[in-house]
């Protein structure tokens, strides 16, 4: 961490030394990329602050010279000068504290940051004194489709855990999978346990297949899409249960069905007994023997028709 800070500091000193501007910053439309060594593309994010604070999300994939610009219209007492400074992840970057002058009824803070590695990402804040602040959150793109409810699977079965990136966003260079181990994340290496884990990578999606599940495999699994400078993380929860779990409602419903069918048939038997006790024998024959009854039905009526004809 300190090594990269040192690098950044050194680059800034070089920049300042070469252009000679230190205190006054004018809102210039073009970014003075005066460092002849860097061939990086440049990008700018400009925020006009309304109110006291604002948060801006910036998605970054590749190395870039990122210019962050904050414009503030000031408050009631518009002092001619105000201290403008930058923070990274809450820590102030002392070297680039400047005094901002009021120009065209606005204060403007602008800084170019070189984003080349994962450490350069994070939260950058520009502040005007203690009064106004803009946070820039530099991160990788969000994972598109992740299932928020746990995936349920069974002991001895295999399961497919899937992570999908939104196809409108650029595809990751590679994917990694991690398993939560307490508070840490342990990477799953395909080669280490090929019988257990299988990782299938497509362009915008990745699948982790876990074979021969045990109850210990339950927990959170993290998929990480790796870009040039950033990574993006999604998580899926896996729950492994035994077959006894669904078996309980299954048996309960079967018992209910058997009870109902028995009740209906017993009720019918008792009804027909009542009828036969009443002395109506033909009725009893009809209801006691349902199967031959239906068979005889059409034949009886056909015979009556024949008699009629």
């Amino acid at each position, binding site marked *: 961490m300190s090594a990269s800070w040192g690098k950044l500091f050194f680059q800034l000193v070089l920049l300042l030394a070469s252009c000679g501007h230190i205190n006054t910053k004018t809102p210039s439309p073009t970014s003075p990329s005066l460092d002849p060594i860097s061939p990086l593309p440049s990008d700018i994010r400009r925020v006009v602050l309304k109110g006291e604070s604002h948060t801006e999300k910036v998605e970054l994939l590749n190395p870039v010279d990122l210019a962050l610009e904050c414009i503030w219209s000031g408050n009631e007492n518009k002092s001619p000068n105000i201290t403008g400074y930058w923070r990274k992840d809450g820590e102030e970057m002392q070297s680039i504290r400047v005094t901002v002058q009021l120009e065209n009824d606005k204060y403007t803070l602008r800084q170019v940051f070189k984003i080349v590695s994962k450490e350069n990402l994070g939260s950058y804040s520009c502040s005007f004194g203690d009064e106004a602040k803009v946070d820039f959150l530099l991160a990788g793109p969000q994972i598109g489709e992740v299932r928020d409810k746990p995936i*349920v699977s069974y002991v001895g079965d295999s399961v497919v855990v899937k992570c999908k990136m939104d196809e409108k966003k650029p595809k990751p260079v590679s994917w990694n999978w991690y398993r939560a181990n307490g508070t840490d994340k342990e990477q799953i290496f395909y080669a280490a346990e090929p019988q257990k884990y299988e990782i299938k990578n497509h362009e915008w999606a990745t699948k982790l297949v876990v074979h021969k599940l045990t109850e210990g495999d339950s927990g959170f699994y993290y998929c990480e899409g790796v870009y040039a400078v950033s990574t993006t993380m999604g998580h899926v929860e896996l729950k492994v249960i035994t077959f006894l779990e669904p078996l309980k409602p299954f048996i309960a419903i079967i018992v209910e069905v058997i009870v109902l069918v028995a009740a209906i048939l017993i009720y019918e038997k008792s009804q027909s007994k009542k009828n036969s006790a009443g002395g109506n024998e033909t009725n009893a024959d009809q209801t006691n023997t349902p199967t031959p009854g239906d068979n005889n039905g059409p034949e009886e009526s056909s015979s009556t028709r024949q008699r009629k004809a």
Partner: protein
Amino acid sequence: MPPAAETKLGYTPPDGGWGWAVVFGAFISIGFSYAFPKSLTVFFKEIQAYFSVSYSEIAWVSSVMLATMYAAGPVSSILVNRYGSRPVVMVGGLMVSAGMVLASFGTSIIHLYLCVGVIGGLGLAFNLQPSLAIVGTYFHVKRPLANGLAMTGSPVVLFTLAPLNQFLFDCFGWRGSFLILGAIVLNCCVAGALMRPVNKSVKPQPKTETPPAVSEEDSAQSSDLQIEENQTESRCQGCVQRFIDFSLFKHRGFLIYLSGNVVMFFGLFAPVVFLAPYARHQGIDEYSSAFLLSIFALVDMFVRPLTGLLGNTKWIRPRIQYFFSFAVLFNGVCHLLCPLAQGYAGLVLYTVFFGMAFGMLCALLFEVLMDLIGAQHFSSAVGLVTIIECGPVLLGPPISGALVDAFGDYKYMFYACGVILTACGIYFFVMHFYNYKKLDEERKQSLAAERRTSEEAVKLKMSPDDKAAYEAEG
């Protein structure tokens, strides 16, 4: 045409009493038959990932189930003719249950096709046809209402199963859900237990007591069928009732029904399938699009019994075929007007009207067949109808999908379905107008013939009496 219960069936249908329990059983059975294949789509995404297959391969599970359910109609009819409704429905329930339980242990997609598709579909076929048939044996006067109530099972069960399936999936994954669904579907056996065979020993009542509007056309058609039946019986004593009655293909009403329905089914289900995708295409979010289907199911649920009630009234019952033709026409007009619907409010309005039209049509679908054929032949008729309708039912949505893909716009699909249904509605109106005229003529002829035969019978009766009188004297 409904045969006069007295002349044709040889008994008086109860029109109530245990009949309502039978209607409830039919409600459950029919509900599972229609709603079960549709409700399984909730599991498809995970099963697709698990077996690493494409979506169309997994969608085949539902299609195979639906196809088997329709194609096994004749088998179901034969069994009902031979053994009655109750054993067939109970066996059907056991089969679907066994299919789902076996499928929960499935190791390949083929396994699912066989267990859920074939075995499950066969079981559902054994639920559908007998349920429809037994309602006809218990009801005559209140039959449209009973049919309407029984058919309401489909939207009610679908409405219940869809969120239930989602809940089961979240708790137990797809395997556990299939196991539990296997148990839930066993309730069809309970429905089957309710389907007590109707008591046929009750003596037929005198003809004057029946509503005159009903009996007039009955006797004409029944005499028509009687003649046909006597011919076939002379060839094969009693075996017609045991198997399929192919003489139905000479029946004018049956042919009208069959020809119209085959064309109609091409355009009937596609709009249901594409309602949510069409809404999403219009820019409506996924949740609201799915909500349209819920509105559709709710409207459907209430319209079906209402249609049954309406069909029972003395103004509509004698000419119920026209009511059915109107329902088909209503569907067609709805679809033709659908592309005019703007925004979510317009789509909701379309969904409400479509729900009404679809509910009316489904409530009357089998009632009009019973009306044309009579309860006696109904099980054979419905078996033949379902196997022939199997083709359009399966081909309808994919052809519509191809239309949507070809033109890139849903409105042509709606126009096509609307045209098909409107044409079928008009066809039904015309053909049934002709059919009713013919039936009235036949009724007049048969009444005249009956008068002649009763006069001859009186003369014949006189001669043996005279003979006996001579012998007694001599």
